[in-house]
């Protein structure tokens, strides 16, 4: 009972200095909280207005060129890593950390021919076809009917066909002009009927060749190959029908953020593929983010050092101002341990109360003030959150404890506690 009374007495001993310590901790934690909130909002503003509004570029993945040769036994050697993309590799890429979406471009692996009638003249040509998902060309062709045709195609239906911009320009400049044929406009080409042969070309023909009708539904710049763009469903169906192993000519990989763009590019390169992307924007944005983060952390460090110094200084002064009292307690039979415990206990309690009060005032006061100011576009975070609150409270309790312990160390110095 007596010792508990002495502990309570210690709490209320030298009330003025204790109150100063209380105010210092309150002010320091309040200042730190405010600063952390401002920096969180700066970071949030930067993320919202720069990092997320400028999305990372799409990564274009292409297998390395590989020409199969016969070995000394007359067998073709196995394709090296990075020279092809099949379904297994596609799944691996989809599972890479930071990858959000992968758009595959499935190339035709069978002989194909197309016939078109334009200006009353019938043209025929062997060709390459690439199958894509509607999502890839959705930005170029915003037509629900085409979307339905693309996604719901089944054998016998007209095949929707998209012309790559590069093919359109190549025809006008390299075929129409040199051969004195009339140039075509987009309007002329749209809606043109095609006859597409699957399993047949001018060089090779399979036994069960299939001929399907197609219709030109639009143009795209998403595929930069001299080919026709068809629904991926069609291409997969006919590749499988003629037992051709499906392989992708490109993958378009979308990443979560700029950071992921760099890491995914690195991983894809290590898988042996040719990777094309504009990394500069991502790198610059990340650099800017890093610099901002560094400056913010430095400022927080300065505030924290100031807070720590003021808390420490006031704690040591508070202990020093009561040395005579502690000396008297020692003479009368209090052990150093009891005196040290009562001091540390007092500072932990002062820290806890001032920390809780500061966080309460901060959460209820500052957050309310900020949220009621016309800062909607700039401030998006009005509360520090549990993680920061816990950290600040921990600092409020432990810093005074640690610094009062430094003061207590003098109690263990015989010379400092010599009784006159």
């Amino acid at each position: 009972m007596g010792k508990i009374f002495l502990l309570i007495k210690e709490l209320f001993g030298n009330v003025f200095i204790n109150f100063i310590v209380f105010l210092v901790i309150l002010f320091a934690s309040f200042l730190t909280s405010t600063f952390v909130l401002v920096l969180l909002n700066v970071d949030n503003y930067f993320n919202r207005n720069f990092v997320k509004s400028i999305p990372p570029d799409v990564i274009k993945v292409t297998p390395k060129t590989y020409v199969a040769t016969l070995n000394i036994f007359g067998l073709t050697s196995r394709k090296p890593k990075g020279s092809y993309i099949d379904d297994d590799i596609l799944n691996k890429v989809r599972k890479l950390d930071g990858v959000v979406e992968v758009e595959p471009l499935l190339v035709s692996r069978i002989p194909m021919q197309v016939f078109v009638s334009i200006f009353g003249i019938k043209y025929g040509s062997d060709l390459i076809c690439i199958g894509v998902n509607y999502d890839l060309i959705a930005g170029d062709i915003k037509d629900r009917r085409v979307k339905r045709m693309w996604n719901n195609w089944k054998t016998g239906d007209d095949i929707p066909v998209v012309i790559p911009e590069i093919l359109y320009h190549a025809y006008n400049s390299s075929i129409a002009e040199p051969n004195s044929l009339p140039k075509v406009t987009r309007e002329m080409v749209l809606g043109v009927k095609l006859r597409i042969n699957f399993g047949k070309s001018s060089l090779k023909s399979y036994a069960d060749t299939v001929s399907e009708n197609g219709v030109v539904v639009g143009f795209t710049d998403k595929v930069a190959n001299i080919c026709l763009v068809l629904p991926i469903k069609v291409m997969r169906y006919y590749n499988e029908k003629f037992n051709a192993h499906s392989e992708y000519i490109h993958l378009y990989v979308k990443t979560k953020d700029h950071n992921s763009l760099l890491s995914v590019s690195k991983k894809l390169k290590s898988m042996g593929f040719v990777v094309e992307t504009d990394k500069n924007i991502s790198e610059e944005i990340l650099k800017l983010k890093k610099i901002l983060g560094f400056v913010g952390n430095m400022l927080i460090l300065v505030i924290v050092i100031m807070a720590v110094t003021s808390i420490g200084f006031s704690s040591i002064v508070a202990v020093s101002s009561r040395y005579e009292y502690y000396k008297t307690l020692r003479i009368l039979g209090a052990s150093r341990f009891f005196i040290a415990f009562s001091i540390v206990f007092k500072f932990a309690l002062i820290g806890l109360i001032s920390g809780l009060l500061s966080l309460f005032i901060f959460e209820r006061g500052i957050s309310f003030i900020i949220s009621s100011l016309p800062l909607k576009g700039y401030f998006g975070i009005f509360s520090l959150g549990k993680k920061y609150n816990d950290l600040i409270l921990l600092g409020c309790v432990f810093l005074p404890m640690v610094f009062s312990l430094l003061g207590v160390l003098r109690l263990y110095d015989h010379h400092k506690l010599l009784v006159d």
Partner: protein
Amino acid sequence: MLVVENISKKFYIGGKEKKVLDGVNLEIKKGEIVAITGKSGEGKSTLLNIISGLIKPDSGKVYFNGRRVIFFLDIHPAYLRNRNIGFVFQTFRLLPQESVWYNLLLPAMIKGFVGKRIKERALKLLKDFDLGDFKNMKAGLLSGGQKQRLAIARALINDPSLILADEPVANLDLETAKEIEKILLDVVSSGKAMVIVTHQLEVIKSADKRFELKAGKLESFDGKDLSFN
């Protein structure tokens, strides 16, 4: 009751080593008064601090009631100080902002429990030491004599077997000094032992053992020559 065996202690003052105590031996029996005198700075207070366990000697041993005092971690000396030793100082060492009652009960609070018996004892001590009317007054407002009487009462609250008095009357006028000397001698007559550091010839003469601390050594003192004072 108390045996001090071959105690040595040195301090470093201004980077120079000063040997304050050099192989001091002392034995105090129950009810005995031991007077120690000597020039200022000869180590009288240091010896009292070592006897009470406030500071650790560099070498040597202290035995209290046959048991060696273990200085490690300050737990054993603090226990002995609280229960078996009463301290009286030249500077009183009271808490001036606290009441007379609080000052008086402080050693009992450190001991643990302040019950009815202790309170009755405290009231008796206040009455015996003529402080009954000042129970609730702040200690800092008392006169020098009253402060020293309160300090002696506080030293007796836990009923110790040894009183250590470090120049208890040096700060008091002649009349008050005589009064305090009488109180201290009365206290010892109730069976307690006392080690008193003093320059008062009368007190020295009334002691059972007399020593002078000289160059770190404790020498027998006949009580005649106080020329150093």
